[in-house]
């Protein structure tokens, strides 16, 4: 294959959906990895399934809509949507089989540890009585049996809800009906939903014995009682996944959006895209389901349905020995008794969650809320935990008469309800709650505190790669920068004015923003690296992100590779770039790290012919981030910080435990190495050590309060 044909050919890209499935496969591998503690493995099964649910609701549903709109090809590799869906189904079947196998294995190993997921038949007398009482008192009152018959239409099965589906025979009609007379057949289908208000597993047993009984196994034996007047011929489980009706505007091209808008007018909302059912479900019932649910594809399950709920077991079973050892995160402010404002003024600070605690971020908001000199607090909130300290502090600040502006993104997937609730609370307190710009999700993470210091207004800034969420900050790896630098302050001030619609984007001092200039900036940085690359000293780019899907950026990276620039990519999830193809991408290495923490940092390092440049961003290299979201990228200019981030990146490039390398054919292969390097564990050691020895990371100087912070930045 010559270079030119390779470059024009769409096969230079991996299919986005299939690549994502590979990512989920890596999550499953973590469940399969026997070196992980048992309950952690169980958690990975749950994550795998929850990922898959979201994938069907959003991505697969989107492809179905494209099929309906008769769109011929879509995606970065221009494939017919039908072909993509077929590919997905085939791979999902395989993955689900693997998931069931590994879950079986985990269950049996857990049994060895005294934790048993069991059916009613395994319970002893006392436990059984307890379960029955549980049914009578708690389950039964919330059950709603439904029967499909001539007078009862097929019910709307709720999205992601587990149902028991029953084949029933009406005892009164049974004898009178002739065969083949479907309309008045005595055969009925019954449904009963597992109540969502109750935990999925009932815990029985005491001491070393820990029994976990799935709700459905309690229900099954009570079905005859529930459907009185019918003979229960069979009981099985079924679960429907529906189109989440999340417009894929972010990804679609204009033409596509127009075509789909036209076609979708007549289409029912929330069309079914997947039917999961127990493998022994009668084919007759299967056909009825298939017919009633828009011909959605069926996925039979051998084992436990809806394994998402296994997270409950992980959360409720207190067996530290079966989980990852807790590691103490470093609180950067632990030894600082001064106010956070003094702390920030002394020097810029870089935080790396979860290795560093989230405390300083929360502290900035809480202290700002109390500080009389603070005039205003502005913050973007995308996904945040319900009773987060951040929200509480913002409410306090607004009540205290400070100007509080919160940019809330209501379209954050699946979090809408939660977001609206606290947004209303803030508004009541007197804060300005802004819902961003029409057509653009606000994905940038910025916090601005305007304070009237004695020598004038000073802006205290925090910029991050992740959300202001104290809960996820313990699981997601993210980086953030605290700074009071004037030029960054101006930029962030302006950013908020842009988001609130008060101004057009100005020329930026330091940061860059999408959808206006970020794409151009990335391409420019890549091209600059190409320009600076020489045979003796080839260029080098290290980029770390969640997903790499953008066509233009990938082509620029190919160009870089062909110009001899070394490109190291650390892409956790979807990656559409095909590495290692001679004449196209032989200088590009792609690796993915899936481990204990969810890799969430977006960092971009450019060798720049000796003048390194390093940026952190909220944006992935995806079209939706670069074209349809408000994203922010900011430079890391402090040499200590740059060295730190570079060291983290190098560590991840040396990982031999949780890293997988992407091969030319799209498969991922575990990295083999003589030394065992677990980058996440190493980073813990690394941050703890650097905290101990280099506490004043920059030598403290006797600098007057008024100008210390600023003057030092400008060095």
């Amino acid at each position, binding site marked *: 294959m010559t270079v030119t044909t390779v470059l024009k050919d769409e096969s230079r890209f991996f299919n986005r959906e299939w690549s994502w499935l590979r990512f989920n496969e890596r999550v499953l591998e973590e469940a399969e990895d026997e070196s992980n503690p048992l309950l952690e493995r169980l958690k990975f099964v749950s994550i795998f399934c929850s990922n898959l649910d979201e994938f069907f609701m959003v991505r697969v549903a989107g492809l179905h809509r494209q099929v309906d709109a008769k769109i011929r090809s879509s995606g970065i590799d221009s494939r017919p949507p039908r072909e993509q869906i077929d590919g997905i189904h085939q791979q999902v079947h395989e993955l689900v089989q693997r998931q069931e196998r590994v879950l079986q294995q985990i269950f049996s190993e857990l049994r060895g540890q005294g934790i048993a997921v069991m059916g009613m038949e395994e319970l002893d007398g006392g436990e059984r009585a307890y379960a029955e009482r549980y049914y009578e008192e708690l389950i039964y009152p919330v059950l709603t049996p439904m029967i499909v018959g001539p007078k009862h239409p097929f019910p709307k099965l709720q999205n992601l809800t587990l149902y028991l589906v029953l084949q029933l025979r009406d005892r009164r009609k049974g004898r009178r009906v002739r065969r083949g007379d479907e309309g008045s057949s005595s055969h009925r289908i019954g449904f009963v939903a597992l109540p969502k208000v109750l935990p999925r597993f009932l815990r029985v047993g005491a001491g070393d014995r820990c029994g976990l009984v799935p709700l459905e196994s309690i229900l099954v034996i009570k079905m005859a009682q529930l459907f009185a007047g019918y003979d229960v011929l069979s009981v099985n489980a079924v679960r429907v996944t529906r189109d989440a009706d999340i417009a894929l505007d972010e990804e679609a091209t204009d033409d596509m959006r127009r075509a789909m808008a036209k076609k979708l007018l007549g289409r029912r909302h929330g069309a079914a895209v997947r039917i999961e059912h127990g493998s022994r479900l009668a084919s007759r019932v299967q056909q009825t389901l298939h017919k009633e649910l828009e011909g959605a594809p069926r996925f039979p399950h051998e084992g436990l349905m809806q394994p998402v709920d296994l997270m409950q077991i992980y959360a409720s079973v207190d067996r530290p020995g079966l989980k990852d050892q807790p590691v103490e995160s470093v609180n950067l402010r632990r030894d600082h008794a001064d106010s956070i404002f003094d702390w920030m003024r002394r020097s810029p600070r870089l935080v790396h969650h979860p290795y560093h605690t989230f405390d300083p971020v929360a502290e900035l908001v809480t202290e700002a809320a109390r500080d009389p000199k603070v*005039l*205003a607090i*502005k913050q973007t909130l995308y996904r945040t935990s319900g009773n987060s300290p951040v929200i509480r502090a913002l409410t306090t600040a607004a009540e205290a008469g400070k*100007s509080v*502006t919160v940019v809330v993104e209501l379209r954050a997937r699946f979090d809408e309800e939660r977001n609206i609730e606290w947004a209303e609370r803030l508004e009541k307190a007197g804060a*300005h709650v802004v819902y961003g710009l029409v057509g653009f999700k606000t994905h940038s993470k910025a916090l601005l505190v*305007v304070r*009237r210091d*004695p*020598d*004038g*207004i000073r802006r205290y800034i925090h910029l991050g790669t992740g959300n202001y969420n104290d809960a996820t900050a313990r699981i997601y790896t993210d980086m953030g920068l605290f700074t009071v630098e*004037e*030029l960054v302050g*101006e930029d962030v*001030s*302006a950013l908020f*004015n842009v988001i*609130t*619609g*008060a*101004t*057009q984007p*100005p020329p930026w*001092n330091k940061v860059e923003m999408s959808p206006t200039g970020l794409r151009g900036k990335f391409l420019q940085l890549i091209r600059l690296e190409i320009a600076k690359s020489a045979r003796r000293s080839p260029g080098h780019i290290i980029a770390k992100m969640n997903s790499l899907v953008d066509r233009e950026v990938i082509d620029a990276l190919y160009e870089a590779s062909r110009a001899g620039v070394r490109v190291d990519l650390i892409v956790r999830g979807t990656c559409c770039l095909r590495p290692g193809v001679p004449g196209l991408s032989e200088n590009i290495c792609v690796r993915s790290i899936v481990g204990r923490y969810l890799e969430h940092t977006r960092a971009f390092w450019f060798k720049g012919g000796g003048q390194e440049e390093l940026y952190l961003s909220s944006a992935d290299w995806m079209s939706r981030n670069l074209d349809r979201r408000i994203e922010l990228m900011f430079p890391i200019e402090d040499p200590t910080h740059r060295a730190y981030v570079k060291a983290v990146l190098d560590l991840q490039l040396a990982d031999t435990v949780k890293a997988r390398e992407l091969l030319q054919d799209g498969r991922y292969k575990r990295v083999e190495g003589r030394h065992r390097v677990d980058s996440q564990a190493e980073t813990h050691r690394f941050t703890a050590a650097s905290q101990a020895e280099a506490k004043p990371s920059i030598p403290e100087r*006797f600098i*007057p*309060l*008024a*100008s210390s912070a*600023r*003057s030092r930045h*400008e060095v």
Partner: protein
Amino acid sequence: MLARCHVALTCRPGVIDTAHEGQVDSLHTLLLGLRPMALSPKASPRKPRKARPRATTRPTAPVVTPEPEKTPDLIGVVDVGSRALRMAVAEIAPGRLRRLETLLAPVAIGLDTFSHGRIRAVTSEVVIRTLRDFALALETYQLKPADCLAVATTAVRDATNREVFLDFVQQRTGFRVQVLEAIEETRLAHQLTWRLMGERLATGRSLVLALGAGGTQIILQNGEDLELAESRSFGTLKLLELRPSARTVGSARRFLQKVVASIARVHELATVESVVAISGELHRLLVGLGHPSQPNRGICLDRAGFQKLANHLDTSTLKEVAEDSGVDISMAELARMAFEELRAFTTPCSPERVFIPESSMLDSLLLDATLKSQMPEQVDNDTPVESAAWAVARRYHISITHARQVRLLALQLFDGTRDMSGLGERARTLLAVAAILHDIGIFVSTHRHERHSAYLIEASEVMGLNPSELARVAAIVRHHRHPFRDIDTRDLGPLRSRERVEVLKLTALLRIADALDTTHHHRVVRLRVATTHEELQVIIETQAGEREGFADLQRAFCGKADLLEEVFGMKPRLIEVLAE
């Protein structure tokens, strides 16, 4: 130095530090401060003062009250322009300016005014919405719309429904928008240019053009002397809107050539060495085309560079220009029109250098506010107004020497009677302007020339004076000749009573000053005022050997002293002493 006139500066309560910085220092920081990027504590000459250790314990030292930290004041300025609404929030301290925020929202008020004559309701709504967003940004600094200095220019000034519009805006948003008179725009442009490029323009002749969307300010300067300062009612957007054929450039070019030719008939343009063109659009376009822009100075084009640019714009279509520079097409269109204006003005002079600074109305307003906070009361700070008056006076070929002499005597009289008159600095300026312009009516006819002077003054633009002040100057001049009993107070009708008294007092002084140079021989060298119980003595120093006798002066003095007696309630008496 500048007019504290109708543009009232409002800033947040707080004491303004009146300590005078060294003039050079303050200029320096100010220049830096004008560009947001240039603010740096290192560059600030104030830094050493701030370099106090923070709250460190100094056990042996006596208790020293720390120098009270002066927190800078915050101000907001809003420009309701023809194409966009802009707002800036800044910190000002004497000699220091630091921009904190700059907001820009495109709203084409000019399109409405220039094509419909009025601002349409739908546009008003957009203005309201935008100003509410601005108010939210102000809240960040706990400023209120009413605290802001908000001004509007041509687009609002020329709208038939301007009062209703302004009231609507105030009711709905709280912003009290003041409409700047055209000549005030000129003054602000002049003040800013002089601040930015004073050193470059101080020698030789220079032409400053503020190429707005709805109006154009033209300032011709010869070193320190102002030769011409006027505003014209054509602008880039107006040209494009009112002359759709201007889109073909040719028609606009012909129009502009006529304008320039008419100016060139009166003022010599050929010897202009440098031209400053203030146009945000042109600056953006040129930056987009790769011209480097220096702080303060902006873009500098020499003859070859200017020609090259002209060729580029001539040979490219609008779309190409827009694509080359990365600006949108409507901005490219305005920029090209600004360039046409610039080219029309530079054709007769072919200047060595053309500067296109990066500056805007917001810069002008902030500078104005800073200067006002810096120099609350300074004796000679009205020179720009006087030079503007001289520029008007020269147009009518007056006797410069006589006018100078009258101005001098009038001001000496003013200073001598200040205790009695209770008049302030601004009145002194008005008197000076009246003295300079009192004889311009002779250009029309010597017969009752004071009347001609008065209406010429009212019809003129004197940069730095607002219409009400100009009316007062006209009133002073109108009554400077005839006996007091002929003064019809109804002529002063539109003035408020305080202003009427002020006008009468100043008229009284001007009459005496004019009388003491009645023969235009400048006999009086110096003048002072002394008072006894019932006498107001005007003591003049004259040189020996003059042709005229004291009697002539005495006669003229007596003929015009009636008003002086009336306003000060003392008998005026002229005393001559010989100058040493």
